[in-house]
């Protein structure tokens, strides 16, 4: 069992049968009152966020949640297949679970999968991914004056992102998987 001093970001607990992860917490203590921890939890199954005040001394049940480093192998329709490199076990995950970043996933990408009672409930991608630009119009010099300092580019995984005008087909670009934003050009 956990108590309030164990509360930290990312702690996985079981409440009313559901696995939650702590996303924010704040120590609160009125001068003459009891201490408690105002805690925001995210339901790992639904994504819903709830806030609860956990009194000092109150216990929290650990959730049977496990995280594993896994390698992304390939996509199969709307599903993504991952492999545990320690035992070569494969796991199939729907792209909804991955969210918007699914179109930035590249073969062999190292991801962290979260399992609740053996079932995958979350996939964490690396914050940045480096992808090759496969299609993009050449930048037009005059466009900068009008404030168009970016243009659309398609990368090898099929995602479309906004890149600076100097980016050409064949360039490697670093992309933030949280935001789909261009970060920088990687020299080969």
């Amino acid at each position, binding site marked *: 069992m956990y108590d309030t001093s164990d509360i930290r970001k990312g702690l996985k607990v079981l409440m009313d049968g559901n696995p939650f992860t702590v996303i924010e917490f704040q120590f609160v203590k009125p*001068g003459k*009152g009891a201490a408690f921890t105002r805690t925001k939890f995210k339901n790992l199954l639904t994504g819903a966020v709830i806030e609860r005040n956990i009194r000092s001394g109150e216990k929290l049940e650990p959730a049977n949640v496990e995280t594993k480093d896994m390698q992304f192998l390939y996509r199969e329709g709307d599903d993504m297949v991952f492999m545990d490199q320690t035992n070569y076990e494969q796991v199939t995950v729907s792209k909804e679970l991955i969210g918007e970043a699914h179109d930035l996933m590249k073969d062999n990408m190292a991801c962290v999968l979260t399992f609740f009672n053996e079932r995958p409930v979350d996939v964490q991608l690396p914050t940045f991914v480096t992808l090759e630009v496969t299609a993009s119009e050449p930048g037009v010099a005059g466009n900068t004056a009008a404030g168009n300092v970016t243009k659309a580019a398609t990368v090898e995984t099929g995602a479309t992102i906004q890149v600076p005008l100097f980016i050409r087909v064949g360039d490697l670009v670093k992309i933030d998987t949280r935001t789909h934003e261009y970060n920088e050009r990687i020299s080969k």
Partner: protein
Amino acid sequence: MRTRGRVLAVDGDTAVVRAELYDLRVTNAARTWRPGDHVELESQQVLRVHGSAPTPGAEVLRMPRRRLDLLRARAKALAKVREVFAARSFLEVETPLLVPAPGLEIHLEAVAAGSGYLITSPEYQMKRLLAAGFERIYQVCKCFRANERGAHHASEFTMIEWYRAFDTLDAIIDDTEQLVADVCHALTGKPEARVGGRTIDVTPPWQRITVRDAMSEHAGIDVDGTESAAELIDKLRAWGIECAPDAAWDDAFFAAYLARVEPAIAALPHAVILHDWPLPLAALARTKPDDPKTALRFEAYVGGIELANAFDELTDAAEQRTRFLGDQEARRARGKPVYPLDEKLLAALAEGLPPSAGIALGFDRLVMLATGAEKIDDVLTFSADEL
């Protein structure tokens, strides 16, 4: 602002390294910086590293400039505090930090040290000084409270505590208002505190609200202090305030207080004195002569930060012993360590403590208010995580 760099080169054994900035976070800024962003530096970043010269590639954490500015501001605030007390003819005292009998308050945990404990506040010893004949005393000292860690809490923190013999809470309120206004003025140029990007007017006199009025106005709950915990919990539930069904009276009170009253007070653009606390929250305060259900106690709030707590001190040794024994009993019942009674304090009260009023004010929080720092860690030389 926090800067981190990667060491690129070491100049001989002078332990001076140059670092390329690769991670920059600017608090209170409209945008978020990311690695790879271009930044302009005032000068080349030079990191001084003590001890052996680091090997290139080692990571160095530099104390950010903003932190250094805050520590300079802290020193200025402390100088102003001493000036204010000197101008009001207070004597600065130093009482021991290591004591055999720490505060007995049910919600404070002392840190054990050697054969005794570190003080949770210097009040027992300062009251003995009042009994010994001093009339106006103040102290700036470290206090220790186990398991307190948050944006406004550190286990080791600095308290300003002062007492006036033969005086009442009105004089203490006046001291508090002037002290806070003067310290804020010394640091911001105006009698204004800064909290979360807002400015809070701390010009004396501050608005005064009784706890009962604040509870009925903001929580819709009439608190008497004589109702049972169950009755109070029923009132809370009627107003949709979350509270465990088996909560003690004080826990129920604070559930309502923190859910409704504190946010309302925090939103005010000026400082507030919250006074006349219900008897169950009297702690070491005397009851009102004409109203035995009310304790002569106040708390000072600035922008939602609880800055200080004051009592018109209980001077009756028998009543004090009864409350201490009650505190011990409550600690035992809740499975908490039971600290010994401070018999020397009780003896001093029995010998005669003049009618007195006193207050404890969090100095670190005062520095936060005067500088706009958002976390107590920002105004400490080194936080617990940095040791």
